[in-house]
C-alpha cells in the first residue's frame, strides 16, 4: 500500500557566497512565496509543512522558530522540523502523505553557511569525547577519504579534477549556481593541493542558500501540475560515524538506499548527487551503478553551490524540475549528511507518459 506522491513545484534562491543583508527569514520568504505560487496553493491549502535546518549555522537555539513565522502559520498548522538536510524533511512529508489524511505538503530548508568557519563548525558533529576536541575540519576528513581512493587504485587526482571541471562547466547553464566557469582538467591539476590530495577545486564553495518544494499526492498532484515528478522510491540509510569502522572508498548506505528506492528497475536519464567533495561523486556513482557521468549533476551539483542543509533537497528539486519540464523522464537524486558520506538518502523520480 503506497500512495503516489509527487513533487509539483520547486523554488530556490540564487546561491551566493554570502548573503550579508538578509537574515534567514528574509532569505526564505521569497522562496516560500515562489514555490506556493508555482503550485497554485496558499498556506491554507497546504496539509503539512516540514522544514530542515541546523542551529549550528545560525548560532541560535531554536532558529527554525523564526523561519516558521515566515510561512505564516495562522490559523495553526500541522508542522514539523528536522535537524537534517531538507531532503529528510521531504522524507517526513512523504511519510505523512502516505497516511492519506492530507494531500499536499510544503517542504523548505535554509542554510547560512558563510557566517561561521563552516569546515571547523562541521567538526562539532564528530564524537564529542574523542574526536571533536581535536577539531578535525571537514576538508581534512574528505582528504583522508580521497587518499584512500588513490591508495586503493580506484581513482587518480585527474579523476577528481574531471569531476570538478565538469561540475563548474555544467553550472554555466544554471542561473542559480555560485561557481560556473570552464576550466580544463589540466588547468585544475596545476593547482597546489590545499590538503593533499585535495585541491581547492575539489572542494565545495561556501554558500548561503534556501530552497522549497511542494508535494502532492494522487489526483491532487495531477490536478495541480500537468506533469508531476512522481516519487517512485525513497529510502535513507546510515553507517557508523567513526571513520575507522568504514571502508571510505565505498558507500554501503547509498547502495542500500538505492536498492530500496528501486533505482535498478530502469535506467535514469538524470542524476543529481550530493557529493560536496569531487572524489565523493566517484564513490556515489559506483554505489548507484551510474557508469555514465554525462547526466550526472547537470546543475553543477554541490561543487557549484553547497548551502549546508539545503544542497540535498536541491538535488531532489533539480531532478524534479527536469521531469516537470519534460526534459527528463526518470531521475535519481541523492542527499548526504555526516562526515565522509556517513548518511545517505536516495530518491527515484519519474514523469508519467
Amino acid at each position: 500500500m503506497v500512495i503516489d506522491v509527487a513533487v509539483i513545484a520547486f523554488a530556490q534562491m540564487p546561491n551566493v557566497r554570502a548573503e550579508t543583508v538578509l537574515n534567514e527569514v528574509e532569505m526564505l520568504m521569497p522562496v516560500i512565496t515562489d514555490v506556493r505560487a508555482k503550485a497554485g496553493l496558499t498556506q491554507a491549502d497546504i496539509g503539512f509543512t516540514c522544514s530542515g535546518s541546523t542551529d549550528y549555522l545560525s548560532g541560535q537555539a531554536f532558529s527554525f522558530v523564526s523561519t516558521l513565522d515566515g510561512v505564516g502559520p495562522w490559523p495553526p498548522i500541522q508542522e514539523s522540523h528536522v535537524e537534517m538536510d531538507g531532503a529528510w524533511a521531504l522524507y517526513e512529508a512523504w511519510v505523512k502523505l502516505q497516511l492519506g489524511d492530507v494531500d499536499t505538503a510544503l517542504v523548505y530548508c535554509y542554510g547560512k553557511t558563510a557566517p561561521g568557519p563552516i569546515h571547523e563548525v562541521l567538526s562539532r558533529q564528530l564524537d564529542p569525547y574523542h574526536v571533536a576536541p581535536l577539531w578535525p575540519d571537514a576538508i581534512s576528513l574528505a582528504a583522508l577519504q580521497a587518499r584512500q581512493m588513490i591508495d586503493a587504485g580506484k581513482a587518480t587526482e585527474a579523476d577528481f579534477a574531471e569531476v570538478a571541471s565538469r561540475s563548474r562547466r555544467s553550472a554555466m547553464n544554471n542561473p542559480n549556481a555560485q561557481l560556473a566557469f570552464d576550466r580544463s582538467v589540466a588547468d585544475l591539476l596545476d593547482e597546489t593541493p590545499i590538503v593533499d590530495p585535495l585541491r581547492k577545486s575539489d572542494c565545495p564553495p561556501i554558500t548561503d542558500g534556501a530552497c522549497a518544494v511542494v508535494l502532492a499526492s494522487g489526483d491532487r498532484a495531477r490536478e495541480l501540475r500537468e506533469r508531476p515528478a512522481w516519487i517512485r522510491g525513497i529510502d535513507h540509510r546510515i553507517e557508523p560515524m567513526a571513520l575507522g569502522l568504514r571502508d571510505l572508498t565505498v558507500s554501503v548506505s547509498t547502495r542500500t538506499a538505492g536498492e530500496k528506492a528501486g533505482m535498478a528497475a530502469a535506467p535514469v536519464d538524470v542524476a543529481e548527487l550530493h557529493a560536496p567533495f569531487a572524489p565523493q561523486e566517484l564513490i556515489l556513482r559506483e554505489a548507484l551503478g551510474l557508469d555514465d557521468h554525462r547526466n550526472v549533476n547537470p546543475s553543477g551539483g554541490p561543487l557549484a553551490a553547497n548551502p549546508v542543509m539545503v544542497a540535498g533537497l536541491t538535488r531532489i528539486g533539480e531532478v524534479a524540475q527536469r521531469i516537470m519540464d519534460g526534459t527528463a523522464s526518470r531521475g535519481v537524486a541523492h542527499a548526504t549528511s555526516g562526515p565522509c558520506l556517513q548518511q545517505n538518502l536516495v530518491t527515484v523520480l519519474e514523469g508519467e507518459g
Partner: protein
Amino acid sequence: MPKELVAVVGVGQTKHQATRGDVSMAGLVREAASRALADAEMTWADIDAVVVGKAPDFFEGVMMPELYLADALGATGKPLFRVHTAGSVGGSTAIVAAQLVQAGIHERVLTVAFEKQSESDAMWALSMPIPFQPPLHAGAGGYFAPHIRSYMARSNAPDHIGILVALKDRTNALKNPYAHLQEHEISFDSIKDSMMLWDPIRYAETCPSSDGACAMVLASEAVADRSSKPVAWVKGTAVRSEPTMSADRDPVLPRGGSDCAADVYRQAGITDPRRQVDCVEMYVPFSWFEPMWLENLHFAPRGEGWKYVEDGVTQLDGDLPVNMSGGVLSSNPIGASGMLRFAEAALQVRGMAGDHQVPDARTAVGHAYGGGSQFFAMWVVGADKP
C-alpha cells in the same frame, strides 16, 4: 485507505538526575533503548528504523548528535531520523516513529529522545544575543511568568494553586523510581517558602535540569498481537504549530493547543475528554501550566482549570489524575520530556506504571508543548485495540 494500526510494545527510560556522569551520551541513550527493547522482548536486530529527538543541539554542544550516536543506537545499515520541534520534540518524535508504522513502511521502530543538560548549559544556550530579537537572558521561566500572571487575572485563580500542583507532582514522583527529584520532606509550606524566581513562579514550582533519556518500541498490529505483555494501541496523534510573533495569538490559552487536542480526540473517538480519558500526562514545566492546559486541552471549562486542582480532581487518586509520574516538575531532560509524557500514558494503559499506576486506566493522553507555547504534540493511547 486505512492506516495500519500501531502500538507501543516496549518502554524504557533512564534514572533521571542532575548529572549522569557515569555515562556518555551514547551510554545514556543506550540505557533507555536497551530497556525498551527488553520490555518489548526484542533485540537490536529486530528493529527496522530509529527515530531520535532532542531539543537544541547547543544544550550539549554537539551538532546533530544522532550522527555520532548511530552505532550506539544500533542503526548501522538502517534508516535513522532526527526530529527537532522545540520542547514538544519528544512527542513529535514519537509521532514520526508511529507514522512510519502507520504508513506500512516499517514494522518495528525504535524511538529515542534525550537530553544531557550537564554537558552544557541550557540557560546559556537559550541566552545568546541575536540581533533584532528580544533577549531571553532569564531562561524559560522569565518568558512564561507573564503568561501565568495573565491566566491568574483572567480566571481569578487564588495564589496557592501553583503550590498545590507542585506538591502533587513532587509527591507522585516519590512513587516513580526513575524521577529525578525525590523530595521526601516536601510540604505545602516548603514550596510556599521557597525562593520567588519569576513572580509568581517559585523555585519549588519550577522544573529541574536533568540528564535523561526515554525510548519506546512502536510496532505493527501483527507484531503487537504476538506480544506476551499488554500493549498500548495508538488511537490518535496530532501536532500543531502557530506563529511566535502574531497579534492573533493568545499564548495563555493557545489556539494551537486547543486545535491539537480537538484533532486527537476526534481520531480517538473522544467526545467528552473529562469523562472518557482515565489519566493525562501533560507538559507542565512550571506548576501553573496544569490548570492552563486543563482548559486548553478541553478537560475543564474556561476559567475553571484551577478549581480541578483545588478540588483534588488531578490527584493520583482523583477523578482525572494528571502527571502520575511526577511530570516535568520532577524530571526534565528537555528533549526527552515530551516522550516521557507519551511513554507514561502508554505505561498506564498497559497497567505497567508500578506504584503510580491509575487503577483500570484504559485510555490515556500524552501531551507535549514547546517554544513559547506555540508547538504542540499529543497522542491518545488505549488498552483496547481500535
